[in-house]
């Protein structure tokens, strides 16, 4: 299972990477915004996308829209992991096609729960 973690803060990417490692997903790549992430997604065979919303360059919501508009990527599971907490934004993200939405600050349990829900119970 190959993950792409997109967040403009390297510390947050590192935290998510560590958590994924602990959950039994050691194969994780990183990108710092949508613009960097999209070509990686198109080129590499990723199985799961975890993205932040508020990023310079291309924000996460635009990345999700681009992913859903790409035939090859349209079915990829996407988890939004963000500090954006306005109801209208959560609805906007749902309409853009996220499979899960976790708000920061978050816990390891919440991340595991959402991954399990999207992927089925983990190993």
């Amino acid at each position, binding site marked *: 299972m190959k993950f792409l973690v997109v967040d403009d803060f390297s510390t947050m990417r590192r935290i998510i990477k560590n958590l994924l490692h602990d959950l039994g997903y050691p194969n994780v790549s990183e990108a710092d915004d949508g613009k960097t992430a999209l070509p990686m997604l198109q080129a590499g065979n990723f199985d799961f996308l975890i993205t932040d919303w508020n990023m310079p360059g291309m*924000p996460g919501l635009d990345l999700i829209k681009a992913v859903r508009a790409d035939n090859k990527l349209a079915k990829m599971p996407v988890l939004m992991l963000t500090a954006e907490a306005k*109801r*209208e934004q959560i609805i906007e993200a749902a309409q853009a096609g996220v499979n899960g*939405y976790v708000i920061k600050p978050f816990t390891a349990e919440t991340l595991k729960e959402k991954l399990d829900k999207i992927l089925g119970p983990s190993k």
Partner: protein
Amino acid sequence: MSSFALLKLEYGACVEALTEALRTEDEAAFFSAIDHIVHMREPGMFTEIRKLTGDLQKALERFSIESRLADIAENEIPDARARLTHVIRMTDEAAHRTLDLVEQSGPLAERTAREAAALIEGVAAYRNRTSEMKGFEGVVRSIDAFLPLVRSMEAFLPAARADSELIRRNLADVLMAQGYQDLTGQIIRSVMKLVEELESALTNLAKVSGDVVEHATMGESSGPGHGPAVPGVTKGDVASGQTDVDALLSGLGM
């Protein structure tokens, strides 16, 4: 009444007072009479001067606000930007330092736990095997079986002590790394003070200019995102936590 008769009525008394002052050589009365005549002759002039004085005062006030604003824009804003960049760098360093220490400690704790578990199993297996051993031969065999366990313990105990000491040191370093909160907090507070000053200077400028301050309403597109919700600042309907988000999404059929 003719227009000259009107003038006589209006100025007669003043001219008489002036003549009287000249005659009596009363300087104060003379100037007072002159002032009175000038006042009557130029009623608009004094209002005009008053207005000009007011304008001049406003202009001076405006100038002092504007030069303060220029100073803020030229020196203090770049300075504040540098300070905030420093805050980002400090939080970044502290977070990475903490993550380094956590990443370093995790495997140590794991190794101790794994080796302790192996020893527990070894001891349990030893008990099982030796419970059947009887007599002198049994004692010899049980001692033989015990020796590898002792060797494992001799290897495990110093390693466990060293690992635990390192983990303890790492935890102390994690504690120290949290000092960034104090330092960055102070920097952010100083920037807040500047923002406050800027706000009051701009408000004063708007007042002096007599401009109507209109509160621009930002477009409500959430394209690039708003950043973390700040209690008391973020407006609108904000989810209070993950439970709230989950409820909202399950309401949408997710």
